[in-house]
């Protein structure tokens, strides 16, 4: 009985090739950005410009993961903003602690 009940009553829908193609395209973009970061790590001189580019590229990757893989872009606007707006506070935390860190640097050296 149990096993018979397990037989699917759900209708399997055919693959949507366009959707699957989009997933692979996003994956290719993520990979390309990572490879670019890798090349930059070895060819560019270390400094603020490089770090800035790294952080921009990382946030760009995060955007793809959240919007495409986690489908946050497909959710309704109130849900989208209730996740994204609180993250604004992190910008302040970043500024405050980066400043704090550089002040400690000045004190020590």
């Amino acid at each position, binding site marked *: 009985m149990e096993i018979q009940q397990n037989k699917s*009553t759900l209708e399997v829908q055919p693959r949507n090739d366009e959707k699957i193609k989009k997933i692979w395209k996003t994956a290719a973009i993520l*990979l390309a950005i990572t490879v670019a970061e890798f090349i930059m790590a070895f060819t560019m001189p270390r400094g603020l410009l490089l770090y800035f580019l790294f952080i921009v590229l990382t946030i760009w990757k995060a955007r793809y993961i959240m919007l495409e893989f986690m489908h946050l872009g497909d959710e*309704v606007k109130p849900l989208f903003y209730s996740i994204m707006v609180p993250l604004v506070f*992190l910008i302040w*935390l970043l500024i405050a602690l*980066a400043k704090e860190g550089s002040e400690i640097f000045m004190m020590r050296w």
Partner: protein
Amino acid sequence: MSAHSTAIGVSSKRGVWGGGNEPLKASYGKLMMWFFLLSDIFTFAAFLITYLSIRVSYPAYAGPAGEFVGSNEYWPVPELVFDAIPFVHGVHAPLVFVGIMTFILISSSVTMVLAVEAGHRNDRNDVVKWLLWTILGGATFLGCQAWEWNHFIHGTEAGSTMTFINSMNQLVTEVVHGANLSVNEYGPGSFAQLFFFITGFHGFHVTIGVFLLFLCFYQAAVGIYDQRGHYEMVEKIGLYWHFVDLVWVFVFTLFYLI
């Protein structure tokens, strides 16, 4: 039965937030997963920003790369610390291994999103297949991280000379090999502490993720989701798994690139 039949007296004037409908158009479970992930984003962000803050409070190593020696006077160059690969001893291969780890985790995120897509189509065979690939990717990543930690803890043969306060509370200058929570051969003590703490916390999340994925794989394979009538659990665990990947993207940048 449904929300529609209870909507007596709900006029269009009441708007989206007037009740009698689902303003966020997402199930309870999915919403709670999102809000949990939001809180976890804050936790990881606090750790990573702390890393950045402590890192900028030390001078960076400025000399030529070939002559780099570890010292707790300055922050080490990541590509000179993480330059080993398994099975090949003594070869300088900067960031190659961690690059492979990143590739594995991103790939497992792709197979996860394919499993979620298959779940939308109620395609049990595809869900099971892609979940299995995702589990494989997650487990491989964990194995790689175990090797990475092992290498980090044991360190290089040469080691480096450090002046530090030892466990007996004495100021000593001696050759240090590898890393522990009080001293390490690569840089200031907080370098290894933050490395252990942050990659460890991330690895802990991956471990839980693999466990959840296995649970999901089992339930899908025996047909529980077919009985339930939907594959939403795949979607919820998928959200968690993508989050783990998301965090790794930031860990990778902060620890290994900057």
